[in-house]
């Protein structure tokens, strides 16, 4: 007997590779989206800081804008720097 697979359609869920499930700012799941967004994934990406904490991009940007001086990570209070890995 010979079995030839012409096409295999699988089902997968995508998820962010992060050290937490929920965004520390909006408390929404990373795999979902921030409260201002409608569509997850490409439209509502995550960003990592050098302190290794990560957030929805929209959330942390909003946070940083509300902090005119001393832009810190809301989790560990270190100065916030984007980690462009």
């Amino acid at each position: 007997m010979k079995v030839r697979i012409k096409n295999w359609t699988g089902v997968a869920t995508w998820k962010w590779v992060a050290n937490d499930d929920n965004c520390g700012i909006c408390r929404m799941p990373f795999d979902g989206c921030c409260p201002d967004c409608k569509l997850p994934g490409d439209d509502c990406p995550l960003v990592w800081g050098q302190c290794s904490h990560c957030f929805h991009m929209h959330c942390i940007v909003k946070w940083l804008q509300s902090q005119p001086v001393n832009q810190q990570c809301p989790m560990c209070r270190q100065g916030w720097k984007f980690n462009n890995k």
Partner: protein
Amino acid sequence: MNDYQIAWNLMKKVFPILDDSFTFGQATDDGSLLKNEFYQCVESSKTLNSGRIVQDLLVSKIEQRLRNEMVPEFWSYFKRSENDNKGFKQFYNAVKSLYDCFKQLDHVITKLDMFKQATQLGDLIYNENNTHDALKLILKATLLSQLNLEYQVVVMNFYETALKMEDTEEDDGQCIICLQESKHCNCLHLFQETNRKLGDMSLLEPLVGQTLTNLIYTYIHAHIQKICKDSFDSSFIVILEKWLQTVVINWLRKIYCYDTSSSNNEVVVGMFDKKLTNYLYNCYTKIRIDQLFNIIIEYPESLPALEDLRLCLPRTELKPLLTKKLQKAMETRLLHPGVSTPDVLTAYVAAIRSLRILDPTGLLLETVTQPVHQYLRSREDTVRCVVSSLTEEGPNDLAEELIRGEIVQVDENTPVDEDGENWETWVPDPIDTSPSKSSAYRRTSDIISMLVNVYGSKELFVNEYRTLLADRLLTQYSCDTEKEIRYLELLKLRFGDSQLHYCEVMLKDIADSKRINQHIKQDPEYSESDIPMSAMIVSAQFWPPFKEEKLELHARLVTQMEGYTSAFETLKGSRTLCWKNHLGVVDLEIELADRTLNLSVSPVQATIMMHFQDKNVWELQELSKLMQCPPTVLRRKIGFWQSHGILVETKPDVFCIQEDLENKDNNIQEDIFVEDYESESAMASAQDQREEELQTFWSYIVGMLMNLDTLPLERIHQMLKMFAFQGPTIECNLQELKVFLDRKVREHQLIYSNGYYKLPK
């Protein structure tokens, strides 16, 4: 001989009826001969002043004659006979004989009249101004006092035959009474003669009227039943009215208008006309009401019947009957377990549509469909059926309603903008309306609103739609989502954007997957060895929970998947894939010694085949261990291949490939249960989901009991309500909570005593 004697003899000569031995028929009255005697008689009674006595004596004699001879003779004709045609003759003869007697009595009365004039006697007989009317009165009274038991049957017979004669549709040239050819038959003549005689005696109405009315009622009823039976697709009112006029009223005219000079008879016919038209409407409406359930089911073909009914209802006062009957019919024909939910829904939708025609105010609809509402609420699959009929082409055609678009009004208290209504066309609500509900709410003609209202919650409806959509997307595995997007847009119009946001993301996932698949295939790093792969990449947060099943795929595929995953990871930074091994669809080509099969199967089934490709014989246990799939489940899946004749169970729990079909024809096990994998939902069932939801409360309950030691059911429910029930779907009633807690008691995680729950020590 004294004066009295002479006067008496004279009297007997003038009025032979005074002599008891006298019989009618033999004495041929000769007016001229008796003229002398008559005047002598008048003179003598004047002198004796006996006019009054003579009159009383005469009346009493007439009454006696009638009572003892004529009426019994008349009634003696009335004997039950089996033969209809004989009945016709019977009645004719009876009337004829009575009429002859009447004529003779009438002759006596005429003479009495003359006598009264001559003697200037003013006394009235029975207060009747006219002595002839007095005779008729006496005749009528005497007849009715001796009423024969069979008389109605005979009269009915007589007129029925005559009516049949009038309304013969198939005229075969033969009279149905005398069985002679029509041109020689004088039955019609006899009939008219009888009516004329009865009319002359003023006996038509008292003797025949009631029977005639009954006969015509029966006749009309039978006629309507005949022409309206099971045909709802044309209107009958006009036809029936015409028929009534041309056949029935015309015939009545023949009976009553024997005398064209009298206008009184037209009045009688006119009254009959009114009475019969009313009866016709009543009868027709009743028949239609009895058929109403079928009429509703056949909507819109039955539209003419409904229109008829709408016209009839205001004229007949039968609305309460209609409501009652329809409710009963719904109950006996619709609301029992033997009817499937889609059928109930179809009937319900048809009822909404057709009752709107009958009663635009919607009151009727509300009363009649109330039980249906309640019943649908008790069925578990209602929402699913509604949703699927909304988005699929089916007999319900709800998709059409969806396109009509209107915002669903779930709450009846929503203020409705009434300014737009034209006050000139405003109609007050019917008197039996309950004032608590606004009429505008009832008047909304939107079927979907009504269906959603069955459950009273948009969320439930939308949730069900989401599950259904997920199922459909995952079982079809086609990226053709155009139709789904269209439905989604339509649903959004009704339910609002926010409610259907999840579904939007789901559809976007499908479109994105298509793009990603293309990208990855072009990726030079990714090599498509011998297994072409594609994937549906979904956003788990937005899809309903998947059914979890464990499955270890074939090693070849695992490497392939790893390749795909890493390609995805490079494409979308910082993201990875979690495969749902048991979901998906596989297109296979299986080459055997004598045949080639092309199939679309589930991943489990494909994996089984891949293993059998490596090794021809497998033990169930071994394979189950390898695939990490319980033996019972695996056996069921193998059953699929057995039914295709590819695998056979050679020994218990040992399966092997069957390369040649022809040699082993008898080995095919036809009766193996084939799993219909299409029907299986990829989503977790509603019950499983619910279980999970309840499980989230468990930690709350444990916390509660730790702090407060023991609690009754109601307190637990109350506290949960205060702290844990958030969001519309996560709610549970007392009953459900009790079931949940009782299960925990059975699992020894709780102790129940004296109505209190507590944690085991």
